């Protein structure tokens, strides 16, 4: 039985370029990058989706919960205010850092998988949770570089963090696939040890292999290996929501809709195996 009670259904990461797809696909929810929502009106496509009854989940990318500093009060306030404005059932952020010594990375970077990092991260997550009006889900990130001297693997690290803080899991199957491929371990085996009962929703995004390295681009089709993970996940547990991420190189609408269907199909095949 899962902790998260809200059923979200089929989702799409909102971008202005995807307004057409959002209007035509039968979606249950959208995810919006929290930092892209200003103090003016919500983007028309997001407002229209809300009016049609879609849930909207703010997804933060610059809080730097994995950083050494406490989360910035202004950034937390912004995330909380976006959650309130869209009537969000939850918000999500990352197990990552994006700045150090005042220097921005511009991208999500991994944290060391050590007891020390776990303590700092848990403290930062607790501070964030106190400032937010809704539950917080945490996403693990894809990374090409790994910290040396890891004390535990990613599944264990994420499980411990969520156990300590009570935060929910934003399970990113593409990130898990990417890390397993690039750092040499079994993705499906690792999946079974993630805290699946804490899933708030799932991310699925496209990527590409280049010179033996898998790049989680969100600008390409979802590879068969990731679709297989959608199926395997649903063979293990029910997921409240599955969201497709497409950030760039936008395909024609019917291609995007077909991809959403392929994800649905993989989920259905997995669920059939679970319930028989």
């Amino acid at each position, binding site marked *: 039985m899962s902790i998260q009670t809200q059923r979200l259904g089929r989702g799409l990461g909102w971008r202005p370029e995807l307004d057409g797809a959002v209007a035509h696909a039968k979606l249950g929810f959208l995810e919006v990058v929290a930092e892209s929502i200003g103090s003016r009106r919500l983007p028309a496509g997001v407002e229209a989706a809300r009016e049609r009854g879609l849930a909207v989940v703010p997804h933060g990318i610059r809080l730097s919960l994995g950083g050494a500093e406490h989360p910035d009060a202004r950034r937390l306030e912004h995330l909380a205010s976006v959650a309130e404005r869209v009537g969000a059932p939850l918000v999500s952020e990352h197990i990552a850092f994006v700045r150090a010594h005042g220097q921005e990375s*511009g991208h999500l970077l991994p944290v060391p998988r050590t007891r020390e990092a776990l303590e700092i991260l848990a403290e930062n997550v607790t501070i964030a949770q106190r400032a937010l009006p809704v539950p917080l889900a945490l996403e693990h990130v894809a990374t090409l570089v790994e910290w040396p001297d890891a004390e535990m693997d990613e599944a264990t690290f994420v499980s411990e963090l969520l156990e300590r803080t009570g935060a929910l899991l934003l399970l990113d199957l593409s990130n898990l696939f990417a890390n397993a491929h690039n750092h040499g371990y079994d993705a499906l085996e690792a999946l079974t040890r993630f805290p699946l009962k804490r899933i708030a929703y799932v991310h699925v995004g496209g990527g590409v292999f280049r010179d033996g390295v898998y790049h989680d681009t969100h600008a390409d089709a979802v590879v068969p290996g990731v679709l297989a993970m959608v199926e395997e996940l649903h063979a293990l547990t029910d997921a409240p929501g599955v969201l497709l991420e497409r950030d760039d190189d936008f395909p024609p609408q019917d291609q995007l809709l077909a991809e959403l269907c392929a994800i649905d199909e993989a989920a259905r095949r997995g669920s059939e195996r679970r319930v028989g």
Partner: protein
Amino acid sequence: MSADRTGYAAKQAALLEALLRGGEPPAGFAAAKAHAASQSLRRKRVGAVRHAWPALTVALGATFDERFDAFARTTGPPAFGEGLADGLAFVSSLAPAHELGDDVRVELVFARAILVRVRRDGGGWRPRRGPFARIARLRHPHRLLFVVHLPRLGPRHASVALVP
């Protein structure tokens, strides 16, 4: 065990520095993977600026990547504003805007409507909260572009042709 945030910060700063500069990573990191990560970071950064500044991308053409690399070597990614703010800092480091053509000039005015430079914090950009108005003289055709940006309403613009 009480966590040492200071030491933790130093380790993260060292990794970040290496990834941004594309140089040798700190001890213990696999050099090839760090290099791949560094390239990926740079590719994403350039991609975000190109996406936010399509006219600038066209104007710079084949020289875009090289000129952005030179800029990126001395200026890190922005704290706010992502590709728009990054591109604004980039454009500001190039030749005077009018030399880049009307389309870039228009992009620049609209970016300035949304972002304002902060004097402290090393001169980064923040979302503009107050009203904004600017007139830009464009050349092809010869006209004046009026841009007004009001909080809650967003940018509005109008062009007036200039009689030769």
